[in-house]
């Protein structure tokens, strides 16, 4: 069926289209070039006056894996009803996740901390998220195998083989490292770890891990830069750790995630200050670095992280007082701590400011992505509010005026005049994350791209505008009308395929025999594990190998 979206105001940064009135044509789930005159669409939808963008893409959102279920268990719906009127809580079910993203015009979300040994189950959980495309980033860098390779001084080629094998075994799209080496060090009862501190057993440093993994990702030709959750999350003064982390990769592409939580100084009477300015300055000066923010919003949420070391350290600040940390299968860990951000807390209010200062301080929108590190900073359902904060300076300053007065005084936010344009919003919520992920047919509306399209009607403010998509098409199918889900569809699971020397399997077999509680033969995710119940399909993307 040929569909015509007629005369919308189109924002498609990939094609450089900035609000021009354009027609968008699509057929069989794909955007097509405007057919010659005389061709009549099977269906014409008049969207004149409306904003038309590609479907939104969240490149960092905790939507699958055992830790999300632990969070649901600690904050079950009946206990989180107060949290938000519309959604039943900060940790929605798989179904609610798909419905709520779809209503906002989002069409893809990516789980950034997929524990490799948990991959099958995480994918099955994500397979129950309707409407969305999805994918995972396999977590490495705290696993005994990689730490052992690095301790033995193994050459980079073998590290690359291991990373490539893991991408295939876990059906993942990218590689993530969380507190490099620190989660493992915590199992040896080490409580803190900085970039050049040695692991208590393996002797390797976070810097070595960062270099090895970023090289592997680069040399294998995985488009998505290494996704880095840096050391010292949440600690006053961690901006220095973050600057060292960004410099550690020696110019290779790197993505620092939820950088808000890593941009703190130690100035002022309370020993806690914003480090947003030097961090933004570094990002601006180094084109190999991209970031997402992990904006904090006020209210009840639940923090979910693989960073057991820092989650254990932070548990006394949790609310309500039930929390869990876990050591997981000699690969990594997880920590789940419910948390309530309060606007009258100096620290929480300053965290809010730090996030916004980063959004406004990083100049190149292609290298900064809109996230709340769902649900760690806030639920993804707060994105419309966040968009308004970015686009509407007077609204931002009014909100700032209601916060803890000392936090307000400690922030430069009031002096920042920048307002995001619709074009920039389209970059930080769609085009930018698609480019970082290397998904060329998503995040844009050029002929050949997937017909993932969101249509918004301008309303009295930007939050209202982006709260409910007027129309949302997923792969060409209308699934949302006026903010209501009208049809059910299943997205695709994207993963990154590359080859490796088969010798790695023999080495892994030996390692599994000695140290794992399962066989290497049963480790890889089978296609049927994801596609078997008829919910979505796998899409393999090729790598652009560098060597």
């Amino acid at each position, binding site marked *: 069926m040929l569909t015509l979206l007629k005369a919308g105001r189109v924002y498609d940064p990939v094609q450089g289209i900035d609000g021009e009135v354009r027609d968008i044509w699509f057929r069989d789930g794909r955007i097509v070039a405007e057919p010659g005159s005389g061709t009549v669409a099977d269906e014409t939808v008049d969207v004149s006056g409306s904003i038309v963008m590609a479907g939104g893409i969240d490149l960092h959102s905790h939507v699958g894996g055992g830790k999300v279920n632990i969070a649901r268990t600690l904050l*079950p719906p009946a*206990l989180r009803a107060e949290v938000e009127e519309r959604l039943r809580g900060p940790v*929605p079910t798989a*179904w609610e996740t798909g419905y709520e993203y779809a209503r906002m015009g989002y069409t893809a979300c990516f789980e950034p901390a997929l524990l490799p040994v948990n991959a099958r189950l995480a994918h099955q959980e994500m397979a129950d998220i309707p409407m969305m495309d999805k994918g995972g980033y396999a977590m490495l860098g705290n696993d005994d195998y990689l730490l052992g390779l690095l301790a033995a001084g193994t050459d980079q080629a073998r590290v690359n083989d291991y990373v490539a094998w893991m991408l295939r075994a876990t059906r993942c799209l990218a590689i993530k490292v969380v507190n490099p080496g620190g989660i493992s060090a915590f199992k040896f009862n080490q409580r803190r770890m900085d970039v050049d501190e040695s692991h208590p057993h393996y002797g390797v440093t976070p810097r070595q891990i960062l270099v090895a993994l970023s090289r592997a990702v680069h040399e294998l030709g995985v488009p998505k830069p290494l996704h880095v959750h840096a050391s010292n999350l949440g600690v006053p003064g961690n901006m220095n750790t973050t600057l060292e982390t960004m410099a550690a990769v020696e110019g290779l592409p790197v993505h620092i995630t939820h950088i808000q939580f890593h941009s703190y100084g130690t100035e002022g009477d309370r020993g806690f200050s914003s480090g947003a300015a030097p961090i933004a300055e570094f990002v601006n000066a180094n084109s190999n670095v991209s970031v997402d923010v992990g904006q904090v919003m006020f209210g009840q949420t639940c923090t979910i992280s693989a960073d057991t070391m820092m989650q254990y350290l932070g548990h006394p600040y949790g609310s309500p007082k039930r929390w869990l940390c876990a050591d997981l299968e000699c690969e990594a860990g997880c920590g789940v701590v419910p948390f309530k951000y309060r606007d009258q807390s100096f620290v929480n209010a300053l965290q809010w400011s730090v996030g916004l200062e980063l959004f406004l301080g990083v100049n190149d929108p292609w290298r900064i992505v809109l996230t709340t590190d769902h649900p760690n900073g806030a639920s993804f359902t707060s994105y419309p509010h966040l968009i308004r904060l970015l686009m509407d300076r007077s609204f931002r300053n009014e909100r700032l005026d209601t916060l803890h007065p000392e936090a307000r005084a400690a922030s430069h936010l009031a002096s920042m005049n920048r307002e995001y344009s619709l074009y920039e919003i389209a970059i930080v919520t769609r085009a930018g994350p698609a480019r970082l992920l290397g998904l060329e047919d998503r995040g844009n509306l050029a002929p050949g791209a997937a017909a993932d399209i969101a249509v918004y009607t301008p309303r009295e403010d930007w939050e209202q505008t982006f709260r409910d998509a007027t129309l949302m098409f997923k792969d060409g199918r209308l699934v949302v009308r006026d903010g209501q889900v009208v049809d059910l569809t299943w997205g695709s699971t994207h993963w990154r395929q590359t080859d490796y020397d088969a010798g790695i399997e023999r080495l892994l077999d030996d390692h599994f025999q000695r140290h794992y509680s399962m066989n290497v033969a049963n480790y890889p995710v089978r296609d049927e594990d994801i596609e078997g119940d008829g919910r979505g399909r796998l899409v393999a993307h090729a790598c652009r190998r560098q060597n």
Partner: protein
Amino acid sequence: MSSLQNVPCPFCGLGCDDLMLHARGAAFTVVSGACPRSLAGFARAFDKPDARVRGQPASTASALAEAVTVLGGARQPIFTGLATDVAGVRSVLALARQCDGMLDHLHGAGGLQGVLALQSSGGMTTTLAEVRNRADLVILVGSSGEDVAPRFRERVLSHPRHEHAGTSPRRVFVLGPQGLPADADSDPAVDWRHLACTAADLPYAVGALRCLVDGRSLDPRAGENLPMDGLGALAARIPEASYGAIVWGGELIPGGHGDLLLEAIQTLLQDLNAESRWGGLAIGGGEGGATMEEACTWNTGYAGRIRFRSGEAIYEPRLLDAARMLERGEADCMVWVGGLEGDHSPPAPDVPSIVLAPPDVPLGREPEVYLPVGIPGIDHSGTGVRCDHVVSLPLRQLRKDGSPPASQMLDRINEGLGGRGVSAC
């Protein structure tokens, strides 16, 4: 004779995947990696049976039609058993939602004790490979390990630790009525010690241990029935451990509040981590228990014991007890969803019932509708979740022409009731 390598075993929460099987007709002999449960489970074979309606052989289609009639006429159906794979859980949730049903896994409150404890205090947990590679001190509470997961000793306790964790024998304390293995005294890998007490005294023993660890005084009368000397020896070992684990099995206090005991254990673990590293590990979760908890939680927000009303899931962990409700007439229809029920068999209630189970599962009374279903991991492929809730097993189809998966039958009943076959929970 054809042999199969690295076969995952679906029958208990330990999730062994190193079995070697020999096919013997439609059945299988476990020639390597065997335990009593896998030997019995893989030896099951049956002629392809008919479905039945009130005891009479029926075509699958007419049995499904009758199931639709029975379920369609029920106002408060309860789905129990729930011993199935991920696909089966998805399907039973969709069906229960469609007909305002209630759900309770065959392990009932005992199965949910870990969840209830987490909802009260949270905890610190660990997994099989972490215990195997790291733990130099293990406390088994209310279980010898082998009574719940037959190969726990072989696969975890007796296995050498990682080279970083030393080579001394692993210290293992068994707290409870369970005895030690017969060869415990001559075990080169494990230094066993039994702290004997009754199951009913377990909470007091854990409380006493807590006092000893904290250096608090304990009224001597409180310790009268407890192995205080042994608990003292254990308390003295705790600060020496480089990595400790507390392990428990299935329902800790039969018919009682195992969740409260687990809460005491979890808060002890949380506090021990202030100084050194500890984790808790449940080794139950068999009969599809862990699978049900995981898939039910991501679909509904709750691990089990829910009822659906107008599409919303309502969580009633203390009230929603299938056995009691059936006994008291608080449910007017029972649906048993099996495949992995092992030695458990469906209740024989006075209300109309629909049983989906492998043909050799004994039935207390003939149900209104019987539908044969296969065993996940033998008759069809699927996914099963291990006791630590982290690792899942790629269950395989090992033979053809077996009975269909429970999920397929449930989906067809759901279609008959007008459902979409998917669960928008």
